């Protein structure tokens, strides 16, 4: 699974995934028409994990496959 290198529109994402509105809003994405697709990993847990405390993120090297 991989995302396309398009310009992303937060409102479209939220329309497709309504439950993402809170985290997207928390990330400040809804304040923009488009947003940078690259975000610092260090910022994610603090912001997103308050919504999804049981989830854990594991990083992969570029080009590697999801195990």
């Amino acid at each position: 699974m991989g995302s396309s290198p398009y310009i992303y529109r937060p409102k479209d994402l939220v329309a497709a995934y309504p439950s993402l509105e809170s985290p997207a809003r928390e990330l400040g994405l809804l304040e923009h028409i488009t947003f940078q697709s690259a975000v610092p990993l260090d910022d994610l847990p603090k912001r997103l994990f308050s919504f999804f405390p049981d989830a854990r993120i594991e990083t992969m090297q570029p080009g590697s496959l999801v195990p």
Partner: protein
Amino acid sequence: MRPRPKGRSGIHFRRGKPIIYLECTEGHVNAVDVLREFGCMVEMVTTQLLSIMRGQSELTMRGNGRHFSFSRQVTPGHFLETAGFKSPDHSRQYVNLHAAALQSLALALLTRTDPRFVFLDILESAREDAMMLKLLSALAYRSNIDLQDRKELEDYASLYWSLAPGEGEYYCNIHQVNDAASYYARQLRSNVRAITA
């Protein structure tokens, strides 16, 4: 030019907990991947919940969609197939209310939201269905329990409601029927007390 994540991600559940895999380039990940995987996670949990409920009971709607009831006599699968994040489709009589309710429950469990966010009609519907009450209680605490054990049901139900907030704070996050939800909460609490007495 700084390299960016191209967007490669996935999610697995291990021991009941979601692990999100993200491509990381110089400390950065793709935000779309992040959001999508979180969305997938919620959807997977919802589906898992529905799969568990499938075969357990039929969920039917009463009272203009504001009440749900369970029946063990029929176990159709048609309305369970569209759970998740489908857009509401009011032209068909099925489901999306069910899906929304169950999704609400799944989200509440996932995010450890205050139990008052849980769709109380479901709990109310389960009131006279000890197995369903046990299932919901077990789900609330991510436990694999023996559905044959009545004592465990009592323990889980008791624990569940001991952690729930006061009756006046309950409300339904789907239909916003505060009074009704509060009434249901009182009834359910009373029933649980009777079970555990």
